[in-house]
C-alpha cells in the first residue's frame, strides 16, 4: 500500500508511510470510510459534457449558472488550473478543460485533448473571446499556438493570460524574463495604481 501511495503525485515514501500508519492507528472505521469513498469515486463523478470539468452530474455548476458570462471561454490544461483561476472570484466566464497539453514525448497529440468539443462550443455562435490559459512552458505555448491557429477560422478574439509581476512581489527579486514580459504588457495608470 505504501508503494501505491508513493506513486501518486506529491507523495513520497515517507509521507505514504505516515498515511498508512495513521490509518492503522485510527482503527478500521477511518479506513472503511476512505475505502467507501474510493469505491464510489468513479461512479459518482461525472465529467461535464460541455466543458470537460469534473462535476457531480452531466453539466457542471459553472456551465449551468445563468449569471456566468457565456461569451467568454477560458481554456485550461487541467481541472486544478480551473480551480485556481476560479478561486480568484474574478473571472465570470466559462471554462474549457483540455485534459493536458500537446506533448509527443508523452504520446499526447491533439486527438488526446478535448479540442473538437472546444471548437464545437466556439463555433456555436455566442462566444466572443477565448482566453488561452495553458502553462507558459514549451508544451503549453505550442498548444496555445495550435489553438490560436484553429480559432482563426472563427470570429472570436483569442487572448493569452498576461504575464507579469506577482502581487506583493519585489521587482529586485524577479527573474529578468518576467520583468521583460511585464514591461511589454504594461498598462496606463488610470484611477488607481493597482
Amino acid at each position: 500500500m505504501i508503494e501505491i501511495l508513493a506513486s501518486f503525485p506529491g507523495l513520497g515514501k515517507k509521507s505514504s508511510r505516515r498515511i498508512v500508519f495513521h490509518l492503522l492507528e485510527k482503527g478500521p472505521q477511518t479506513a472503511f470510510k476512505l475505502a467507501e469513498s474510493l469505491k464510489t469515486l468513479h461512479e459518482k463523478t461525472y465529467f461535464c459534457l460541455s466543458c470537460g470539468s469534473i462535476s457531480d452530474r452531466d453539466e457542471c455548476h459553472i456551465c449551468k449558472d445563468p449569471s456566468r458570462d457565456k461569451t467568454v471561454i477560458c481554456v485550461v490544461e487541467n481541472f486544478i488550473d480551473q480551480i485556481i483561476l476560479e478561486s480568484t472570484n474574478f473571472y465570470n466566464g466559462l471554462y474549457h478543460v483540455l485534459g493536458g497539453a500537446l506533448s509527443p514525448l508523452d504520446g499526447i497529440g491533439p486527438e488526446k485533448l478535448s479540442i473538437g468539443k472546444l471548437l464545437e462550443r466556439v463555433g456555436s455562435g455566442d462566444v466572443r473571446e477565448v482566453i488561452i490559459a495553458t502553462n507558459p512552458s514549451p508544451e503549453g505555448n505550442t498548444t496555445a499556438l495550435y489553438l490560436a491557429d484553429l480559432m482563426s477560422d472563427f470570429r472570436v478574439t483569442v487572448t493569452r493570460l498576461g504575464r507579469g509581476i506577482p502581487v506583493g512581489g519585489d521587482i529586485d527579486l524577479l527573474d529578468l524574463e518576467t520583468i521583460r514580459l511585464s514591461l511589454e504588457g504594461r498598462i496606463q495608470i488610470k484611477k488607481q495604481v493597482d
Partner: protein
Amino acid sequence: MFIKHLHLKNFRNYENASIDLDRGINLFFGENGSGKTNLLDATHYISYGKSVRNSPEDELVRFSSTGFAVSVVFEKKGEDCTLSVKYSDRKKEFWKNEMKLEKKSDLIGELTVIPFSPEDADVISQGSAQRRRALDILLSSVDGEYLKSLRWYNKTLRQRNALLERIRNKESLETETVHWDKMLSLYGEYIVHERGKMIEILRDNISRLAAEMETPFENFDMEYRPSLKRGEIAEKMSANLGRDLKSLTTTQGPHRDDFVFYINGQDASKFASRGQQRLLCFMFRLAEVDIYRDNAGEYPVIVIDEAFIELDKSTVLKLEDKLTSYPQVLLASADGNVISEKIVSAFFNVSGGYVEKNKKNK
C-alpha cells in the same frame, strides 16, 4: 574580486585547512595527487554549488568522514563577503554572511571563479558539441533569457523528435509538426542572434588581447557557422520534414551550430600546431573573462589548473605579463618554477592535504 581566505574541512583529502590568499598570483605547487586540484575545486564548489567535474557530494567527502564544509571570505566591490557550504547527512546548506540561502541558485553569482584547465583546448581540437557547450555556458551565465531559451529549445526539440517517430509509426499526422517548428524557431532565432553577437565580441576581445600580448597570430578571425541562418529557421525546418522523417531526427537547427577559429586564413583546428591551439584557447578563456568583467563590473577570480602544458617558454612569458594585470589568479602546478618567481604574490607548498604558505619559493 579576490578571495582573502579559504577554509576546508573534510573536503577531498583535506582534513582541516585554513589558507590566507593574496591579491595577484597565488601559486600552489606540489606533487601529483597532493591535493592542488582539490583546493581549486573547493573554490569552484563555493561559487557554483558543484565541483568542476560535477562529482556527487559523497565523492567530495574526505575518506572516513560523514560530511564536509567549505567557506570563503572574499572582497567584492570593496566589501567583504563570507560564503559557506556545509554538507552532512546527504543535505547541503549554503550560507552568505551568516544568513542561510534558500536555494543553490541564490549562491550562484556571489563569487565568480573562472576555471582554466588543459581540457580547454578541446574547444578547438574536438567536435562542434564542445564548442557549442563553451558558448552556451558563457551566454547562459551572462544572459538569463538565453538560458531559458536554450532549455526550452532543447525541450521542444525532444518533442519534435518524438513527434517524428510517432508520425513514422502512423500515430500522428505530419501537419502536427507545424506548431512545434514555429516554437523551435521562436527560441532558435533568439539563440542564433545571441550566439552571433557573442562570437563578434569574442573575436574583438581575442584580437585585442593578441595585439596587447604580441602573440604570433597573424590575421586572427572567428566565424560563426549557424546550421540555419537567422530568419529562415521556421521555413527550413518545415522544408526538412521529409529528410527528418527518414533519419528520425531534426537534421538542421541551432543544435547543429558551430564556429571556427582562423589563423592566417586557415582553420586553426586543422592547421595550427598543438602549442598554437593551446595558446588560442587560453586567449579564448581570457576573452571570456573580459565578458564576465563587462557584465559584472568587476574581474572574476581566475583559477588555472596546469594550463601551461605544451606552451613554450616565450609564450608563457607573454601570458605572465597578462596574468599580473588581473586582481587574483590561483594557479596550480606540479612545477614550482612554472612561472617567474618575481610575479608571484604567494607560494603555497601543497603536500598530502597540507598547505604551507611562503612568501618565497622554497
